[in-house]
């Protein structure tokens, strides 16, 4: 930056840098459009009722579906929610209500740092916690891994949402003689509720897209399974296995399964956006 240069030169640099920044923006767009376009164009051909309802067929046989993987993902994510949502939201409420001391700061810092721990590492932890004591791979182990991934991000999101609730609401309730706990639950948390639901939906979307922590916890399964003690197929692991296989038919299935996964994740994201918009309208 040379402030002694002529004004024209400085103007040119200014415009030039603005253009460079805009170009970078376009550059970031290309991969997004490419991923979306390819998943849709390559995946749509394989969509059929059978794809959602049938078991995978062995190599060489035409047809078959990923029904068991879809059910497996839904089942494990649901199990993970049972553990992860209450703990994550609860920790978030703790941070918002009691989190101003040393312990609160430590918890907040930990939650932030844990949200960056690689998911594969969490997989090893779930392996040690569930697979080793049980002696075999299981849906429960996968769900534990997913829930550990959910907790820290959900806690931070919940805290911010609860803190958004105006203090005057709480004070008004307390002034009416309502006890603290009832004020927290019925006034503060209820006001933040739609935001918390949004955060939960996003956490679910993220969990549904996780692959690495499932590889050696839930493993895989060729058949239907809704037993938490048995190994379970999942959409993401199915995509991985199909993608690295040498068969063209399986590659096509990987694209179609990716399309299904993107639709699931996309719907959850859209739902969360709609909820957020309604919340903003309500606040006005």
């Amino acid at each position, binding site marked *: 930056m040379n402030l002694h240069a002529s004004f024209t030169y400085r103007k040119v640099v200014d415009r030039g840098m603005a253009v460079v920044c805009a170009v970078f923006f376009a550059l970031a767009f290309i991969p997004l459009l490419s991923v979306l376009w390819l998943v849709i164009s390559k995946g749509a051909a394989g969509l059929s009722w059978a794809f959602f309802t049938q078991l995978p067929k062995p190599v060489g046989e035409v047809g078959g579906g990923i029904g068991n993987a879809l059910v497996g993902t839904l089942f494990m994510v649901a199990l993970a929610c049972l553990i992860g949502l209450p703990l994550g939201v609860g920790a978030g409420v703790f941070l918002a209500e009691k989190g101003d001391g040393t312990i609160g700061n430590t918890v907040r810092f930990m939650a932030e740092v844990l949200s960056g721990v690689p998911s*594969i*590492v969490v997989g090893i932890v779930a392996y040690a916690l569930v697979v080793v004591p049980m002696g075999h791979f299981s849906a429960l182990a996968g769900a534990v891994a997913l829930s550990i991934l959910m907790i820290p991000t959900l806690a931070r999101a919940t805290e911010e949402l609860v803190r958004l609730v105006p203090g005057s609401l709480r004070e008004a309730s307390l002034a009416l003689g309502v006890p603290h706990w009832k004020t927290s639950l019925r006034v503060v948390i209820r006001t933040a509720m739609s935001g918390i639901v949004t955060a939960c939906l996003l956490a679910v979307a993220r969990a549904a897209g996780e692959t690495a922590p499932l590889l050696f916890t839930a493993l895989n399964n060729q058949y239907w399974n809704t037993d938490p003690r048995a190994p379970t197929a999942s959409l993401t692991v199915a995509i991985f296995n199909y993608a690295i296989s040498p068969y063209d038919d399986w590659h096509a299935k990987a694209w179609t399964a990716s399309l299904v996964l993107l639709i699931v994740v996309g719907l959850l994201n859209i739902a969360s956006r709609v909820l957020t918009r309604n919340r903003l309208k309500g606040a006005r």
Partner: protein
Amino acid sequence: MENGRPGAENLGDRAFNGILWVLGIMILVVAGLIVLNLALVARPLAKDHSIWGFITQTRWDPVEDHFGALTFLYGTLVTAAISIALAVPVAIGLSLFITQFAPTKLGRVLTIPVELLAAIPSVVYGLWGLFIVVPWLRESIEPWLGKYFGWIPLFQGPPIGLGYLASGMILAVMILPTIVSVSVEVMKTTPETNREAALALGATKWEAVMMAVIPYSRAGIVGAVLLGLGRALGETMAVTMVIGNTPQISASLFAAGYSLPAVIANEFAEATSNVHVGALAGLGLILFATTFLLNAGARVLVTAVQKGPSRVRG
């Protein structure tokens, strides 16, 4: 409590407080569980491997129970370095565009595609990388680089597509949203008055950015990059699918390699001996420790910027 007679604390309050504290402490328990369990699974490794030997040797031989992690460390570091080199300029330009150059309303809309990039699952990136990016690199980019920049050792060797370069490029796309969202946030904390002061003194928009925005948010941008680096180091699926999974160290970016998370993903389920599982958990510990430190550092930097220096506050 302030809402009752002294000493007559509401029973409901006490229960509620107790539950909240337990839930909050759970986060610390989870952190403890992660460290404890990693260490427990990794323990069989410690019997005949020193930490130093583990990270400086290259021989990874599950049959003979001899484990050295250097090859994988190298692959992880190289791919992360490529991704940072590619993603950081784009991310900073993009954040500046969103916060400084684009009109406010447009800027808000422009964050949506960035969020979309973050929402795509990594296995889908892997699939895209394997069938789109890798052939593209093999057929056009790598031959081109080899032809014109082949005198640099980085760009020598046969263009096979799979390898460090492919992994680095896909990682760059994946860490971009992380870096952008955090840098946008810290750039927004720059006091409007600082920028206006620069503009009032006759600075162009770009000069105002360089004089007011960048110096104010520099530490936070570094924090954003560290967060991105942490994500690049730990990313598993996309890298496993495109790095080639070949345990070798080579100077060429075109060569196939192997990374820490990729080994864990490929070998953990089939590892039979305790020492092998231990070695993989050892790799996990290295990953955990590195990302933990990176994230902690990043958070400190970002929080410092968001709070603002005390002299600016007054």
